[in-house]
């Protein structure tokens, strides 16, 4: 798209919401906005006006570096055939067993 198009004047922002104080922020979706303040306002209207969040982050979508689907194998294959890579041969103390 040309620089004068929608994506230039109304870039995309990724929205992260925190459901309660102390909880991690989770990706909720995205909005278009001219700048950070209006992105925050748009995110509030779209993702947080029914009590879903107590905090919001908006991040320019271009600022996020993401892994590519083609990376899936090298990045995420857990290597299950190499059992020694997984710390599963220990008896966990009772206190941490809930994990």
């Amino acid at each position: 798209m040309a620089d004068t198009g929608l994506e230039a004047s109304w870039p995309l922002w990724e929205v992260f919401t925190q459901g309660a104080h102390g909880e991690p922020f989770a990706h909720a979706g995205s909005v278009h906005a001219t700048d950070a303040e209006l992105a925050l306002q748009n995110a509030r209207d779209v993702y947080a006006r029914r009590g879903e969040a107590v905090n919001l982050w908006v991040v320019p979508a271009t600022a996020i570096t993401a892994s590519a689907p083609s990376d899936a194998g090298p990045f995420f294959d857990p290597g299950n055939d190499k059992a020694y890579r997984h710390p599963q041969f220990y008896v966990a103390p009772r206190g941490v067993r809930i994990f």
Partner: protein
Amino acid sequence: MSDDTVVSNDATPTVFNPAGVRVPIIQNPLFEYLLRLGDDRLILGHRMSEWCGHGPILEEDIALSNIALDLIGHASSMLALAGTVEGQGRTEDALAYFREGVAFRNALIVELPNGDFAFTMMRQFLFDAYSVLLWDALSQAADARVAALAAKSLKEDKYHLRHSSEWVVRLGDGTDESHGRAQQALDALWRYTGELFDRDGVDDAVAVQGIVVDHAALYARWQGIVADVLRRATLVMPTDGAMRRGGRAGRHTEHLGHLLSVMQIVARSHPGAAW
């Protein structure tokens, strides 16, 4: 709701005061006062709802509709209370949908057609700044019902003011096109702002009942907010000239009747319908 379907056509009765000026007879000033609060927000909320599906971008469309819903919610609360205060059994729906234009008490500024986006946002900003200050004052009212509704509405209007003032800054301090349109909107709207701060017999009467608003202080604070945002927006505040007024007495522009015909058609076509 058979009582609701009776169309009220009551222009306010008037008398001549000792100075020979025709003034309205206000039987129930609190009812009258609540109608002003409710009607301002009902009519502005309806104007804002006209943007639904026409916003410049999906996110702004949602924001505009969201503001419309908030304003109609405030109107609903105020008109419901007005109906209670009137004591004639009229509900908020009866007051919203079965009154004629002359019985509406909104200020003229809220009934003007939306114009372009700059006009809509500028009007919203000028009104929001007024409304936030008014709710702030009314949240101290001795009447607990009014104070509670004011406090609740204040919270939402603060967000509206944030949205509209940020837009005024961006439009004013934007492109030549947006700057020109924003200044034009401001110049056209200015003559309708004076009416918001008028003080009359209704204000004096409700003040006796503990609903006290210092109109001069309100106007001074409003000017401060507006001047600050206009400076950031690189817009020129117009000088005060002749102000248009009349809405509080039921004398409206030609635009209100057209608005009401759209707003009231469903309720009047299906009186008593529930949905």
